[in-house]
Structure formats: structure tokens, C-alpha cells
């Protein structure tokens, strides 16, 4: 057997390969569940019911998909340049931190002004947190994967410190928690969901436009293909990378603002709820395409919500849904090979 790089592949074939890989991952998950003594089909059915089974559950799933969509868009910008930003968690937290600073200190401002300020504070918080690895990367060549990851932990510890120390709510009956936001600082609801879903759609559209139709977007994709080409074409590579990463982190920071204001109504160290990590998966599964990020994120939000449902229904720990997510991802990553290459037997060498 040897492999040959495919020169062209039809869309149907790509879809077929993806479909087979998802099918295989579900089969593997079934074996896993069977081994645990559960009936796989029942579990999958409950997973779907837990995720999309009623208006309430659908709303919960969609609320979870908002941060996933937005974080994925943010991470996508970085991934397009092969800048492995796995610091979504930290950028979300620092965005939430900055927005909460405004919310807790200027709550007497008129609501639209206050929320706008919080929005920009969130962007700034996440953007500045991402600026650190971006500057280190372009000037010193420091590995951004580990820096962004370490900054996640630093951000968590920072907010934990605030929660237990200077920002602790004096009226919190001694609990280490930060005060609940005033009604002024809470995102309004539209059709039963906090307004974040409209912001999310707007961000998807804006970033799609930026990447597809503007000069900066073109530069980002060229840098992703080859930094040398970008340099040769006279682009200011460092400048583009830094600007794009601020945008990437800033968008994650907006997620922090939306979660703190629209969902939790306060700041806490688990404001990011692991979205920064899950978004890495959804971004990759979407093939770095903004339009596909929305359905994939809704599906993964369903996996998260369905996962907590089967926890109560079957006593299967929520971590089972993490395993399921990882399995799906393993198979999709593996299937990429069959999209890029085809296998031919060594005897039929020249029969291309």
C-alpha cells in the first residue's frame, strides 16, 4: 500500500468521509456504553431529548451555543494564521473581569450606555490578554500554545483571588462570591434568550465579511498559508498577526461579558465554563468556516446539555459526554487523511 495526494475531491466524497467518521465514532461510543452496561440507543435518544426535547431544553441548549459560537469565531481568526490560541478560557475570564469592573462600579449609568461600556471593556480585557502571547510570538518566537494556556490558569487564579479577597460581596453571608449585578448591568432578553444571540449572529456576519472581502482578511489567510509568501508580498506580517490576535482575544472577551451579564449576573472564576476549550473542537470541526461554526456549536451545546441530562437519567457521569466529544473529534481528525490522500496498492502503481 502507498498513498497518493489527491488533486481534487468532490464535495459529496468529503461529506461521505465525514459521515462515515461520525458514524464510526458513535459506534465506538456505543461499545463504550455497552461496556458500562447501558443500552447505547437509549442513551443516545435521551441525549437528544435532554438537548432538544422541549422548548425549555432547546432554550437552554441555544443559550449554551451562544458563547460557543462567539468563542469559536474568535479562535478561528487565530487558527487561520496557524496561531494556536488555546487561551480562550483566559480571554473569556479577563473579558468578564473587565466588564464586571464597569458593572460593579458604574451601575448608576443609563442602561444602554452601561452595557455598551461593558461590551467594550469585555473586548478590551480579552484582547489585551491575547496581546501578551501575540507580542511574544512575533518578537521572540515564543510558543503561543503554552503561553495562552498558562495565561488561562493565571486568569482563573486572578478572579479567584478577587472572589475571595478584594471583590468579595460584604452582603454574601460570608460566601466567597462577588456581588450580583444591578438590573442595569444585565443583558435584556429577546424571544426568551438574552440578546447575546443577536450579537453572536452579528459577529459571525462581520467576521465572515472581514475574512472574505477585506484586505486584512486576505492577509490573514495568506499568513496562514505561508509566512514567507506574505513577507514576499510586502505584508507587514507582525502587524497583521498582532492585530488579528487582539481581535481573536477580544471576541472571546465579549463572551466573558455576555456570560457574566446575561447568564451568571455576576463574576466568578468559572464564568468560562470550559467554553474556551470546547470552542477549539467546534472551530476545528467547522473546518475554520464561520457559517459552519453555528450548526456545529449548537450540536455541541446539545452534547453538553444532553450530557447533563443523561447524568440524572442514567447516572452516567457528565464526563461521558467529554469522552464522546473527544471520540467524535478523533475520528474526524483521522478522516482528514482520507480527504487529503488516497491509498493505492503498490502493484497497481501507475494506474492513477
Amino acid at each position, binding site marked *: 500500500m*502507498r*498513498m*497518493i495526494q489527491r488533486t481534487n475531491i468532490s464535495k459529496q466524497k468529503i461529506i461521505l468521509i465525514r459521515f462515515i467518521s461520525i458514524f464510526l465514532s458513535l459506534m465506538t461510543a456505543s461499545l463504550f456504553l455497552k461496556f458500562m452496561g447501558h443500552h447505547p440507543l437509549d442513551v443516545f435518544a435521551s441525549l437528544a431529548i435532554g438537548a432538544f426535547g422541549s422548548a425549555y431544553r432547546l432554550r437552554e441548549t441555544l443559550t449554551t451555543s451562544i458563547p460557543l459560537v462567539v468563542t469559536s469565531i474568535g479562535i478561528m481568526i487565530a487558527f487561520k494564521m496557524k496561531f*494556536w490560541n*488555546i487561551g480562550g478560557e483566559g480571554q473569556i475570564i479577563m473579558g468578564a473581569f473587565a466588564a464586571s469592573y464597569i458593572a460593579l462600579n458604574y451601575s448608576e449609568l443609563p442602561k444602554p450606555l452601561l452595557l455598551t461600556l461593558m461590551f467594550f471593556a469585555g473586548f478590551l480585557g480579552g484582547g489585551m490578554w491575547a496581546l501578551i502571547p501575540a507580542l*511574544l510570538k512575533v518578537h*521572540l*518566537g*515564543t*510558543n503561543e*500554545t*503554552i*503561553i495562552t*494556556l*498558562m*495565561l488561562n*490558569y*493565571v486568569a482563573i*487564579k*486572578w478572579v*479567584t*483571588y478577587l472572589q*475571595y*479577597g478584594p471583590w468579595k460581596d460584604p452582603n454574601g453571608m460570608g460566601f466567597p462570591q462577588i456581588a450580583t449585578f444591578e438590573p442595569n448591568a444585565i443583558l435584556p432578553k429577546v424571544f426568551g434568550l438574552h440578546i447575546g444571540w443577536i450579537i453572536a449572529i452579528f459577529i459571525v456576519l462581520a467576521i465572515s465579511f472581514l475574512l472574505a472581502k477585506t484586505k486584512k482578511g486576505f492577509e490573514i489567510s495568506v499568513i496562514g498559508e505561508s509566512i514567507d509568501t506574505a513577507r514576499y508580498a510586502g505584508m507587514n506580517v507582525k502587524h497583521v498577526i498582532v492585530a488579528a490576535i487582539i481581535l481573536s482575544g477580544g471576541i472571546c472577551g465579549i463572551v466573558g461579558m455576555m456570560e457574566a451579564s446575561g447568564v451568571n449576573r455576576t463574576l466568578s472564576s468559572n464564568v468560562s465554563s470550559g467554553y474556551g*476549550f470546547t470552542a*477549539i*473542537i467546534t472551530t*476545528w470541526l467547522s473546518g475554520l468556516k464561520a457559517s459552519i461554526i453555528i450548526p456545529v456549536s449548537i450540536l455541541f451545546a446539545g452534547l453538553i446539555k444532553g450530557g447533563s441530562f443523561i447524568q440524572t437519567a442514567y447516572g452516567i*457521569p457528565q*464526563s*461521558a*459526554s*467529554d*469522552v464522546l*466529544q*473527544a*471520540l467524535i*473529534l*478523533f475520528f474526524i*481528525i*483521522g478522516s*482528514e*487523511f482520507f480527504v*487529503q*490522500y488516497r491509498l493505492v496498492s503498490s502493484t497497481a502503481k501507475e494506474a492513477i
Partner: protein
Amino acid sequence: MNTSFLVAAVIASTPLLLATLGELLTEKAGHLNLGVEGMMLLGAVAGFAAGYYTNDPLLAIIGAGVAGGLGGLIFGFLTITLRANHTVSGLTLTIFGTGVSSFAGTTFIGKKMSAEFIEFFNPVAIPVLSKIPVLGPMLFNQDLFIYLALLLAILLGIYLYRTRYGINLIAVGENPGAADASGIHVELYKYIHVVFGGALCGLGGAYLATVDVPQWQEQITAGRGWIAIALVIFVSWNPYKAILGALLFGGLSIVGFRLQHLNVSQNLLDALPYLVTILVLVISSFKQSKENAPPKALGSPYFREER
């Protein structure tokens, strides 16, 4: 700084050392595996389960090695055979390992290793050597697992720099095309070292779960896998330096408890190892030289056809 602090630092450094050695070996084969945290957790839960049910320390170690090695094998299959992206494959492995360990560990939450098991890993003083001031209690009056880790670091150093296989491995990581041309079985080398690297990470996790803590906690590794990846860069892919690098970070991770009287918030002190990791990476990027450089083919897939 007193001796008891240094002894505790060696204990805290052991999971880091094992994981650093594992990742070092993997990277020498040209593969950047970001799944260290996942493989450590796989090893932790497998080691804990094996030790908890059988009370056999050897089985616990073997179980942890096999579990970590299986994690490495998944990564190896994706990145060696299927030429998948290293970063994404490694991250997925971390998600997988975290999920599997939480899942399999639910039954163990709050459970402790038996007294008999713990006793097996009580410090064993090595005659004469343990009497050396400072170094004696630090290195020669420790538990058997620590001796194993130190021995592995030295053996790996000898293997890498003094044996034909080690030199071949370095060739594979630097220039797989040339290694292939000189008759080295590139894929086999990659597989063996990626899997063995995973096994070492698994051992690191098991030390934490069965000896250091020794009680099951979810996500018991708490980010040590990531620190290990940074440590590999810090020690410039050298197993001997890994001993010192791990010791430095082991010390940092416990310094918080020793500084409590300074009235600094524990939560801020907890951020110290992560901040120092960043600092270390920044310093490492300044002093980049030929000797300290990563394997040249690190992270890039190898295609024989393209020769």
C-alpha cells in the same frame, strides 16, 4: 531554605520529571504531543484503579504505563500513520484523557490507597549515601517511585547520547528523510518513542494519584502536563537537565505553603508556577542557539513519497 523543603520539592517534582521525560522522548521523535495532561490523567486513573483493587504497586505502575502508552498510541496513529495535525490531535487527547479519568474515577472520589500500599512507597534510605548532608535526604532517602524516576532520567540520557538507537532517534527527529535513506525504520522509531513517551507521562500521573496525594481527586494533575511541555523547552530537550528543571518547578509549586506567613493571598501564590513557566519560555526564546534548538522536524509530518 531548609532540608525538609528540598525533600518536599523532590516529591513535588517527580510527576513533572516523568511527564517531561515522556514528552522529551516524543519530541525527539519529531512529534509535539500536547496531550501530556490527558496521558497523565489516563495513567493516574489506571494506576489508582490497579493499585486500589490489587494492592500491588507493580501492577499499579504497569497499569499506569499501559494507559499512558495507549494514549500515546492513539496520538501516534493519528499523527504518524494518518499524518494528522499534531496540535489538534494532542489537544483532543487531553480532552479524551480528562474525560476518561473523570468518568472512570467517579467511583473512586474520596477513596484512599490502602495503608499497605502506602507503606510500600515509604522512604527507603540508601546506606551511606543518605548520610550526605542535604543531598542525602533529598535524593537518597526517598520512595522507590522517585528512585525509578531519577533512574529513568539517567538511563534516557545514556540512551539518547550514548547508544546507536538514541542517535538514530535524534536523526529521525532532525531529518526523517535522511534517517530513512540511511536505513532507519522511521515509522517504527516514531511509534516506539511516542508510545513509550506516553507511558512515562502515565507514570507521572500515577505517582501523583497513588503516592503523592494518595487519594483520588478529579483532574488531579491540575495543569502539570502543560508545565511539563514548557519544561521540555526549558531544559532544551536534555534528560539530565530535566531533573533540575523539574526540581525548580516542584519547589515553586509548594513554595506557596511555605510563604503563608508573608500574608500573600494563596490564590495569587497558586498562579506562581504558571507565571514562572511563561517567564521561563520567554527566557528560553532569548537564548536560542543551535544546541538548545528543538528537533528540526518537530511537528511536521513525514512522507516517504516526497523524497
